[in-house]
């Protein structure tokens, strides 16, 4: 299989779906050149810097038979659109008793590592998990990104795709266009099998967890790494089944811990009597420190989790 970058995989998903369905169009505050070239300015619409309006217009267009894609660029910029996301998009299907479907894809970059400081390095996806009515994908590989985006565009609901800023230039194997591979929303993937401990990792942290697992294999610790890929809805079954097998859980997330996706994952394991009974040690989380993300390299690196901190965390759970 050919290898392409995460960024390229995202673009291919959009191109393939726009070719497939004339009702798909794209809004972003800057036109994406290959989309503008292929589909023209009617379908690759450069908008004013008015994310709230873009977000709401996507709802209206979706309710009128289109499948809009609204690209916020960074999650940071969608906060001016919170009314449209929280009060409108997340609730419109339900509030009106399911009269109409609203197929919308919202895209946003998340995560740090770019020395971009507090406003441009955040991972606030759990704020959106808190809203029923939104589906949320958080892909960690080019293949997952492409397959999940294609499913998201074909889904009849608002879906938010949070895409890792640190992952854009990472490469991976991706089936070509003919394969038309769809990865279903709501299905986790076991990225590495192991027996001693389950590490549920999100987005960029998946790669750090895999690196930690490699290090620990040399110490005789067998780590299973699970990537939920979709965080709303969460694939609780795959996570619980893994923890039933290993009896230990560590959650690794580039976001902060408080009310985070990591908290939700820890809860679903401890709330389920059968899974809880199999736990041999307390659940541990390795997340960002609970501060806004700082700028200076030494500060930023200190705040984020990484493979070393994940490996230390695994050793601690094994010793507990």
């Amino acid at each position: 299989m050919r290898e392409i970058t995460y960024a390229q995989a995202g673009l291919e998903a959009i191109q393939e779906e726009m070719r497939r369905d004339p009702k798909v169009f794209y809004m972003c505050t800057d036109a994406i050149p290959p989309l503008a070239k292929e589909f023209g300015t009617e379908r690759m619409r450069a908008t004013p810097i008015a994310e709230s309006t873009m977000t709401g217009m996507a709802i209206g267009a979706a309710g009128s038979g289109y499948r809009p894609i609204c690209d916020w660029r960074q999650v940071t910029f969608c906060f001016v659109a919170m009314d449209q996301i929280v009060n409108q998009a997340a609730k419109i299907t339900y509030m009106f008793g399911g009269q109409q479907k609203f197929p919308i894809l919202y895209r946003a970059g998340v995560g740090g590592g770019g020395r971009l400081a507090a406003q441009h390095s955040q991972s606030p996806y759990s704020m959106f998990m808190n809203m029923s009515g939104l589906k949320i994908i958080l892909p960690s590989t080019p293949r997952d990104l492409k397959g999940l985006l294609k499913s998201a565009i074909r889904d009849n609901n608002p879906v938010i795709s949070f895409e890792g800023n640190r992952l854009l230039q990472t490469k991976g194997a991706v089936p070509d266009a003919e394969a038309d591979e769809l990865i279903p929303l709501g299905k986790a993937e076991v990225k590495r099998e192991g027996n001693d401990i389950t590490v549920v990792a999100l987005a960029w942290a998946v790669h750090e967890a895999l690196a930690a697992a490699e290090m620990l294999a040399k110490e005789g610790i067998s780590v299973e790494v699970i990537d939920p890929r979709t965080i709303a809805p969460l694939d609780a079954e795959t996570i619980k089944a893994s923890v039933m097998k290993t009896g230990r859980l560590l959650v690794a997330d580039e976001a902060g811990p408080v009310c985070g996706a990591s908290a939700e994952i820890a809860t679903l394991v401890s709330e389920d009597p059968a899974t809880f009974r199999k736990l041999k040690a307390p659940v541990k989380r390795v997340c960002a420190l609970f501060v806004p993300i700082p700028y200076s390299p030494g500060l930023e690196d200190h705040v984020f989790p990484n493979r070393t901190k994940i490996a230390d965390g695994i050793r601690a759970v094994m010793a507990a």
Partner: protein
Amino acid sequence: MPLGPNTLREMLHTMQTIRRFEERASADYHAGKIYGVVHCYIGEEAIAVGVCGALRDGDQIISTHRGHGHCIAKGADLDRMMAELYGRRDGYCKGKGGSMHIADFEKGMLGANGIVAGGISIVTGAALAAKLDGKGGVAVSFFGDGASAAGPIHECMNIAAAWKLPIIYVCENNQYAAQTPASTTIARQGEIVHRAAGYGIPGVAIDGNDIFAVHAAAEEAVARARAGEGPTLIEARTYRWRAHTERAGQPDYRPKDEIEGWKSPDRDPIARLVAHLKRDGHLTDAEFEAMDRQVLDAIERSCAFAEKSPFPAPDDALDDVFAA
């Protein structure tokens, strides 16, 4: 096009339906059959009816928290509306929405909205869809004077003007946002029409209680929109007769004589249309009474329908979070 007597009588019928529907909704609210909150549109009927009278099937509108009038004017079914207010399974939203969230997507009514200014960008998106469809469809955004002071209308008038979207922004300036007079919070003594100039689009201020003025302004704006010439801002000056909501014990600081003044026959939009039709020999007192009885019967039937419809089962709360 000048409005013929038949059309005018139909418009009168719709205006009277809105008024009687809300009188009943208010009574049933106080009787405990309707829950939460009800915002009445009484006194402003000419705007919804005049504007929707300039639209075709397939055109789309969005409403506000004060949505019954827009629903009825766009052809929504009274039975399903009343059933929704009663919280019943046969309501428009299966009892999930209530007064603030009635929508009828088949009729092009994209919903009332509980967030002030929350619907403006949604219906601007519907206008974009209409433009992409290329079939001459138009969209209408109703919003209040209160909503005019929030960000969305500015963003939306800008993008609609830049993209020449087929949309009409209809500000229902009833001069108050809840208890707060527009003159104290809105620049230019509470006049909104001047905004249009900033976006290079036509702006007209009209007497919103004059069905002829509303309809004429709407027709012109709709014609422009259909012809691909872009948006229009209409500021329709009006007044709400009742308190901001029906909730008991809500203060209403508006001067008594101001309220009574707006209810006088020379300002009441329905009385004005009745007088016009009578003067021209197109309506008699007996005919208007018969029309009113018809309206009251339809509303009585809608209440019976609502009463007969079962409440949703508790577990129905779990349905419709996502579309299939």
